[in-house]
């Protein structure tokens, strides 16, 4: 399973969605019921991949695809 697929599965798990419903062009804020769920999802993704984000890293990250790219870049570091 590649990073993108694993990340989407994790997002689906946190959000209680099926992975197929999470597309890369989906806007993150439309997927979550509240800002706190987004916090939870971002923290869970960091735990899952052993990476660390800071608030500044999330500036400009609005879609699933952008978040996946951020995870991939951190895993590669």
């Amino acid at each position, binding site marked *: 399973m590649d990073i993108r697929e694993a990340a989407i599965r994790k997002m689906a798990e946190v959000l209680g969605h099926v992975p197929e419903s999470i597309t890369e062009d989906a806007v993150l804020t439309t997927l979550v019921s509240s800002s706190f*769920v987004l*916090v939870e999802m971002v*923290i869970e993704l960091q735990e899952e991949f052993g990476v660390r984000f800071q608030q500044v890293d*999330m500036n400009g990250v609005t879609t699933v695809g952008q978040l996946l790219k951020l995870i991939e870049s951190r895993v590669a570091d």
Partner: protein
Amino acid sequence: MIDSNLHWILSFYRNSEIGGALFFGELARSLRPSAIQQDMTRQFADEANHARYWTDCMASLGVKPLKLELAYQNQYLAAAGMPTNLMEILAITQVFEKRVVGQYTLHSKSPNVPIEVSRTIADIMLDEQWHIRWIRGALKTMESEYGADNIRDTLKRFTAADREVYARTITEHGDRLGELRLASK
């Protein structure tokens, strides 16, 4: 009975404590089981209790709480941005707690505070001291992982956001806060 401004202020405190309980409850829920989650859970339980203290205080003063709109905390994420890791969660928590302690200290030192209000603030402050202590301790242990400079910068950023939210509150409700606002200058 108490005057309408004090009635509004006590209702505002109660509303803020309810908002705090929900805010920290949501943050606690977003964390994995850990010592920090345990402390955050205790904190949101404390905030819920504080709301009850204010309800009881108002009852002893012969009034019922007013229904108010958005609590102070609800504006936090909009102003400060979304925390993305544990350190940022604790940083925003510490900034918020300092604001609470500052406001209650200011109120307790203002003239003509009813004894019921003084006692309620004193009870709440006992918990607040613990809140600040556990958060400070937890942030200290994170210095090796996140960097002391980074933590300091994060606290600065959230403090600026807190000031922005507080200034907005003063602008909107300055007439109600009256001498509490003047005393804060």
